[in-house]
Structure formats: C-alpha cells, structure tokens
C-alpha cells in the first residue's frame, strides 16, 4: 500500500515485517498462539505507522522535499534503527516459535504438506481479500485509492489527503504485524532477514501493478512457483534471477504491471 498506492519509498517495510516477527516471538514465548499475537499486534503497529507517516509528512512531504534520495534515506535510516535495536535486544541468533500447526503436516494421498505453510497461505489469502474489500467497498478505502490517483481532486471533494495517507500508512504497517507472525511461523528469523526480502517485495509490487491488492497475491504466487521450477530444472544459480527476469519481461509487454491500470 505504501509503495504501490501512496508513492512513498517505504524501503523499511521488510524491517517492520521482521519487527512484527520478533514482537510475535516475545508474545509467543509467553505461551500465546503466534497468529493471535500477530492479530493483537496489529493495532499497535497501526499506531506506529500513523506516527511514522506524521514524521515523514512533517519532515519531507510538507516541505516538498520527499522526492528523490531524501525520502529513501529516511526509510533506510528507520530500517537500520530497527535492525540495530533488534540486535541489541535479542542478539543475532535466530528465533523460532511453537504452535500446534508447526511441525505437523497434512496428507493428500502420497503427498504431505506442512501445516504451517497452509496456515500461512490461508491467512495471507484472507488478509489480502480483506484489504481488497476494504479498499473497494469503504469510503476511506476508496479515498486511499483516490489519493493515489489525484490528491488535488480528493481535496476538492472535501477529504483531507494527509489524513487519508496517514491511515493508509497505518494500515500498511499494521499488516506487517500479521505478516511478521506468518514469517516466524514459516521459519526462523534473525534481525538481518529484511535484506533478503527487500528486492522481492518491490519486485512483487511492481510486477502486480502499483496499487493492485489481488495482483500482489498472484504476482507472489507466480514468482514462488517460477523460482521452484527454475531451481529444480535450470539450477540454483538462476533461481535468484527469476524475479527480476520475469519483471523485465512483464514490464516490456505491460508497463503498468500485470494488474495495473
């Protein structure tokens, strides 16, 4: 949402994802279910997102200095602060959580699928659907889409674009709490994990088409399947190149991305 709809160079998004994973770890260590922990953390992260956007707006957008490197540097700074804070508090070792659906599998005939992957897939599907519905059916959701298209027109309709953007940023950050819970359910996390995701995150958003919620889910699936196929056929060296290879081809044919308008 932040990158695709608001044109904010939010490179700290994967860092918030890792922060969400660690916050889930803290609650899960007290015996709470990781999914429930992720859900409970969403309002906290929403407030965090509101605060962060307010700082970004006051420092850059209001002064018109948000373009170019300054905005990116701001979010890189936040990413570094999160990373270092996690290292200081938790150390550099990997962390995992426990739940009934972790460590077990579901059998489909001869095939077994880890239950944690099914849970993560199901929750990701539900979250994406909920976001898509929110953006298309509610007043604020439609305003978020409108602010991405024409901020001036939205202001003329009597809505405050800054407030709408603040809410959108809060929602984007809140989703990091639940996504972080899914991340630590899937596998171990460490404070530097965000580096692995940053390239793929932007690739999925651009491939889907900026602002398309359902598109990100489809783009994510396409990349995941393509990487697996390339891994087992063409070799490991080609797997990391898959994401950007597909992106280049798609942008060549459809510059707005797969589902962009």
């Amino acid at each position, binding site marked *: 949402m932040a990158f695709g709809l608001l044109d904010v160079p939010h490179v700290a998004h994967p860092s918030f994802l890792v922060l969400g994973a660690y916050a889930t770890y803290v609650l899960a260590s007290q015996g709470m279910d990781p999914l429930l922990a992720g859900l409970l953390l969403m309002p906290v992260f929403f407030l965090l997102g509101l605060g962060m956007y307010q700082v970004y707006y006051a420092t850059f957008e209001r002064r018109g200095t948000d373009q170019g490197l300054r905005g990116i540097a701001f979010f890189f700074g936040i990413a570094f602060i999160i990373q270092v804070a996690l290292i200081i508090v938790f150390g*550099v070792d990997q962390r*995992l959580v426990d739940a009934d659906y*972790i*460590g077990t599998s579901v059998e489909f005939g001869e*095939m*077994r699928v880890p239950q944690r992957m099914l849970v993560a897939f199901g929750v990701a599907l539900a979250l994406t659907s909920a976001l898509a519905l929110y953006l298309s059916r509610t007043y604020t959701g439609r305003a978020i889409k409108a602010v991405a298209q024409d901020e001036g027109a939205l202001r003329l309709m009597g809505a405050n674009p800054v407030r709408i953007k603040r809410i959108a940023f809060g929602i984007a950050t809140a989703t990091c709490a639940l996504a972080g819970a899914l991340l630590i359910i899937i596998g171990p996390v*460490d404070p530097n994990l965000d580096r692995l995701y940053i390239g793929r995150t932007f690739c999925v958003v651009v491939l889907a088409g900026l602002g398309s919620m359902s598109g990100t889910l489809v783009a994510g699936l396409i990349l995941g399947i393509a990487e697996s196929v390339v891994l*087992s056929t063409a070799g490991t060296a080609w*797997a990391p190149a898959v994401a950007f290879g597909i992106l280049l081809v798609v942008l060549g044919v459809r510059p707005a991305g797969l589902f962009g308008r």
Partner: protein
Amino acid sequence: MRFRYLLAVVFAVFSLAAAAQQPIKIGMSMPQTGALGGGGKAALIALQMWVEDVNARGGLLGRKVQFISYDDQTNPSLVPGIYTKLLDVDKVDLLIAPYGTNVTAPIMPLVKQRDLLLMGNFSFDVNDRIRHDKWFNNAPWGAGALAWGGSFLDTGRKMGAKTIAIMAADAEFAQNLCNGGRALVKAMGLQTVYDQNYPPNSVDFSSIIRAVRAAKPDIVFICSYPAESAAIVRAVNELGVGPSVKLIGGGMVGLQFAPIMEALGPMLNGFVNYNSWVPEKTMANPAVTEFLKRYSVRAKAEKVDPLGFYLPPFNYAIGQMLEQAITATKSLDQKALAAYMRSNEMKTMVGNIRFDAVGEWATPRVPMAQFRGIKGKDLEQFRQPGKQVIIAPASLKTGEVVPFDKARN
C-alpha cells in the same frame, strides 16, 4: 655540536621506548550479524578472553596485545575491504581469519600477494588451490573431505547403505564439502539417487524433502548453513524422509549452536552431524571445561550462545598458538612465525596440533555425533553426556549409531 648529538641520542632512546610501548595489534573481521553471526559473536568472546588473559600475564614481548575486529555481516564481498583497512589503516601486526569458509575464501589472494601469516578459523579447504605457505587453519577436519564426509559415509556403508541423496547450499563451504563427498561416494561404490543444490538462505525445503522421500535413499548427506539447517530439520520432522533412510545429516552448520539446538529440541533426535567438541567422556578435557565455565558467564551477559562448545575453545586456541609462536621466536616476523608453526607442535587447550603442508590439521579429529533422547526444549540437557553420542571416529566413539527411524521413536 655535542648538544645536538646528545639531543639525537635522547630522541632515539625515547622513540625506541615509545615503540616498545606500542601494543601488538591483532586484527580480524568476524561475522557478528548475518547467517554466521551467532557463532561469530561466541568466537569473538573467546578471542577477547585470550587477549585479556595474555595482557594480565604482561602481554607478549613486553607489549600489550590490542585486538581489532570488524563485523563482516557474513558477507564475503565486504571481507577484502576490511582486511585491506586492517593492514593499511589500522596497521595491524598479525591477522586472524573470520569464522567460516565463505567469508575466508575472498581474503586468500590478498594474504598470498602480501605474503602474510593468516590464522584460519574453522574454514574448509580454502587453501586447496592457493597453497599459501603461511596459512594455518585451526579446524579439526584437516584437508579434504575424508575426515568429515568420509566418516559419515563410512558409517552409512557399515549400516548396509547402498544409495545416497545429496543436498547442498550453492555456496563455497557447502560445495567444497559436497564435492569432496561426491568423490567419496563414487569411491565407496554408493549409488546417488538424488543430488540437488539449493540457493543459500532458502527457508522452505518441502519440495526438496518430498523429492528425497520419493528417491528412497539409504543415506541423506546434507551440507547446509545455520538458517537452512534449522529449516531442513523442521521439514524432515513435518514431512518425513521415508523408512529407507538409515542415516541423515553430515555437514549441517548451525546444529552446534545453542539457540538452534534449543529451538529445535526433540526434532533433532536421530540426526547425525559433525561437531568439534561435545560433552562426552572421550572428549573430557579439564582445560576446556574450566574455559567453558568462564565463557558461559560472559556469554550470558552478552546474549550469545551460552553453551559455546563448537567455536569458542578453538578460537581461544588460535590465541594460544600465536602466543606460543611469538614467545618462542621472540619476534613478530611473519616468516619466522610461519616457519615455527610449520615445524613445531602447537600446544593448545583443544589438544596438541601439528599442521600439514597446506596448513591444515595433520591429524584430523571430527566427532560425528548422533542426537539422542532430546526431550523438550531445555538447553541444560545438552550439557549432559548421552545427548550427542559420538559414533565416529573410533578413537572418540561413545556409542553405536542407531538407524534414523529408530532413533526418532
């Protein structure tokens, strides 16, 4: 004229005195974040303990020892720059390599070109092609894959295994080990039924484990780094590798680190993996036990691996080797120190070590241990004997290997 002469003498005396007071600088990069960060931080504590101990004894050659280290983030591309800085800006006298193969390989050309002594730190076969004569690797596996992969594969063969599946990260360490393993598999007459490399830092191994299961191997030989090792153990636990598998593990880095052992708990049961030191009676060593007592106090305060079995004793031993060589040669001359290390037995906390022609342990000693009877996630259980039973080599053996399926139940 006489006054000027006197002034020059006084100046020279003061300069010499000042030089004598300059500390001996020992520099290195160490993974303190990234994939090997957990192990690297533990190793760093051990080296700092050695520096404190040696300075408490009055230092070396009458000079204090100063230790300079930088975080290389387990990123091989950063390492050559860090070592250039250590040499040209920090002006260090001696170098120690970072922990790990992937981060050590990029500095080998630099030390070879500048003809410098480099103390290796648990890397694998990085001097195989470069053949630098001032490289001394403190790692118990020696040169080649024989002592490491050999004892694992030989154990499988003795269990009646005929087929093998290989899975390895596409990175320097894992490929070095697995390529050595592949040659041994051929020499032993085992049939490879599955062989797959995967990208480093993969988090999901479901498809690979399903493929291994379908191939029905007797042995599964894995060469992986910490995050992957944890993910593989979890995937095996969820999906199973099938009843054909008698032996699984071999070269999984990370299963020696306390946080991962604690997190995986009973999922580790049955895995057979290499190690450097485990609390079994054949490896009992009062010096190591005493060191680990001191280490665990520091590690707890610094939120680092509280067990410290794997790397810390060996990193302290690197310091002991430097101390022995500098004291014996009364010099910091790289050539003299290397000549001494090549021709003398190095007496360390982890045992007496001689180096071979390529600077690896002349007599390797890799305990291949099987996780057994792990219950719950209590870390203290790993301090007890019987939890990591040594099944090879014969000189360290504390029990017979149990087939994977049986060891799980």
